[in-house]
């Protein structure tokens, strides 16, 4: 069997609202394979890409087909939380690895013993953000999040921690996931006169939000934007204009991360794709790394139990910095950086200025 390829089913939203997420991850995966070859531990790696358009019942069927017909060893990708959740029972039943490369709700990894994650959880960046905000003179905050699980996660983790640290959340606003005009919500936030607005919008919507924020003149009114890094997504940042200068976010990856590894990564990525990598792409890149290394460790054995065992505790240096897989929760442990939007060589970047090291998912940590 050593000659058989190891098949990886990559289920991503390649069309629809979340298409940019899919594109980034796919590019990350491709880049990794290009750099590291398509053979590992004597076995060829074969990636089968499927588009679920972020519709969970598509995800479920595609996962099922990949497992049953294509006999994949790993299903990977998952642009949104419901998609990742929908596939979980199949991972358990089929004993295949479900590797989450994007979705960021805390609970996902608890849904099957075969799930591992190389992206992030929203709590991971929201909690350090709350700490930072409390320490930096921000007292009153309005939270604004998209009304779905990751948004709720971000809102809850931030508020809990922020209140603990003595801050005040004067209003919590949730807006629909698909939302054309932020104006009324922003106006409402502004009328509450906070020191800062904590915002979470899914990858891709940050641009509109920031535009309308400045259009309203809130920056001039002295209100800061803080949030998990999605709102100043690297993908969109260059197009957002100078208005976003100074926005402070907490996130695990910035294209500006000042390590040699990252500089090489960004360069190679741009060359291959013509656009800047964002945090989604490293999820895909690191996910492939995790699979490769685990296979090396198992000597090419790719059944679910062996592979997940090999993944647990694995640690390595990623473009984002040092990361590892928590042996208990199979979730990712990583640094979270505080960043501020600045202009470098005429382009906007999230420039890191502080680091919180080795952050575990706070939600799961709190459960113990």
């Amino acid at each position, binding site marked *: 069997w050593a000659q058989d390829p190891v098949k990886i089913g990559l289920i991503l939203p390649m*069309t629809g609202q979340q298409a940019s997420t899919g594109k980034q991850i796919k590019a990350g995966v491709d880049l990794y394979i290009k750099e590291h070859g398509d053979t590992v531990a004597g076995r060829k790696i074969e990636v089968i890409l499927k588009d679920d358009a972020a519709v969970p019942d598509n995800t479920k069927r595609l996962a099922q087909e990949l497992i049953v017909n294509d006999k994949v060893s790993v299903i990977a990708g998952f642009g949104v939380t419901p998609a990742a959740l929908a596939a979980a029972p199949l991972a358990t039943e089929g004993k295949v690895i479900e590797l989450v490369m994007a979705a960021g709700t805390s609970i996902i990894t608890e849904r099957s013993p075969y799930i591992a994650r190389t992206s992030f959880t929203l709590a991971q960046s929201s909690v350090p953000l709350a700490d930072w905000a409390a320490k930096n003179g921000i007292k009153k905050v309005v939270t604004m999040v998209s009304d779905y699980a990751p948004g709720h996660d971000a809102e809850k983790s931030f508020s809990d921690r922020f209140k603990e640290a003595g801050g005040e959340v004067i209003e919590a606003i949730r807006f629909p996931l698909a939302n054309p005009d932020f104006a009324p919500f922003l106006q409402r936030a502004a009328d509450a006169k906070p020191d800062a607005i904590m915002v979470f919008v899914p990858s891709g919507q940050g641009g509109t939000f920031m535009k309308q924020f400045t259009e309203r003149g809130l920056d001039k009114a002295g209100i800061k934007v803080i949030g998990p890094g999605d709102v100043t997504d690297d993908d969109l940042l260059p197009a957002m204009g100078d208005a976003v200068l100074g926005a402070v976010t907490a996130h695990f990856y910035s294209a500006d991360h000042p390590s040699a590894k990252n500089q090489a990564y960004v360069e190679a990525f741009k060359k291959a794709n013509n656009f800047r990598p964002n945090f989604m792409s490293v999820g895909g890149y690191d996910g492939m790394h995790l699979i490769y290394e685990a296979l090396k460790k198992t000597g090419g054995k790719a059944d679910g139990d062996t592979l997940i065992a090999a993944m647990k505790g694995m640690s390595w240096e990623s473009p984002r910095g040092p990361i590892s897989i928590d042996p208990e929760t199979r979730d990712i442990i990583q640094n979270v950086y505080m960043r501020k939007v600045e202009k470098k060589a005429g382009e906007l970047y999230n420039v890191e200025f502080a680091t919180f090291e080795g952050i575990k998912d706070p939600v799961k940590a709190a459960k113990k």
Partner: protein
Amino acid sequence: MSQQPPGEEIARRLVARASWQPLEVLFWAAALASIYVLPGRHLILTEIAILGLFALSLDLILGYAGIVSLGQAAFFGFGAYAAGLLAKYDLVTEPLLALIVSGVAAALVGFVTSFLVLRGSDLTRIMVTLGVALVLREIANRYAWLTGGADGLQGVEIKPLFGLYRFDMFGHTAFCYALGVLIVLFLLARRIVHSPFGLSLQSIKGNPVRAAAVGIPVNGRLVAIYTIAAGYAGVAGALLTQTTAFTSLSVLDFERSADLLLVLIIGGTGYLYGGLIGAILFKLMQDYLAALTPQYWPFWIGLLLVAIVLIGRERIMSWTKPIRALARRLDWRRSTTAVAVEGQRP
């Protein structure tokens, strides 16, 4: 003209509308055969069967009663959540029974909302049905404690069918189950459309003013068929939940209703098979193209849709003439009845 006395000829013509055509028999034989012939494709076949049933529900109101709806997902979603909740909280554990309950529940919703679509033009109806589906979606989103909100309904576990057949990962049980339900409901629909009730729907579609002048209670008939169709959609939704043990807000999405409309138009309205054929074509096309180019498959689907319209359904139908001619030759009743009736008006 035939040599028969006109009386007999007329009687025969009336009944011939409802007689089984050889192609129909062939169609269902092929469907049944796929259980054995294509065991590896049962997953997608199940989806096709469900989509086909869903399209059938739209055909009943659109193809026969002339009500355009862009909100069938409302009933589909309602059925889906009903089945999910019934299973999750162990309210009705037998899948078939739960399916029926879900269908009836969706039909009730259909009955209540049917009064909204009695008036207005096509466009109005499109928007009202769409609005109903969107509002329902918002409600499902809002009551996340019950429905799971944007994360989907988790923890649904479907008990074995009749206590015997477990829903396996290969989807064998699921396919047989879905196909069985589809066949039963298809037969029922076929019966309905060939009945005087069905004919009266067609007349309402053609000319409601005249229909009323013939003594047809237009609104009553529309309410009835809308309710039935909602039940069909609900059953389809429930089937989806039961065969995937999962449901999420996407069952109520606008895209679902829109795709459904596409499916039905591709297959053609008003002869019952349109939805089924459309479902087969659309799913296979999508599956094939998405495998070929996961990122840009919508382009090719779009191109196909455009081509279908530009070439024209009649011309496409004429390409299948040889097949139909062949089927007619195979018709065992040909000698006795000389079936010149095309029966179906695609």
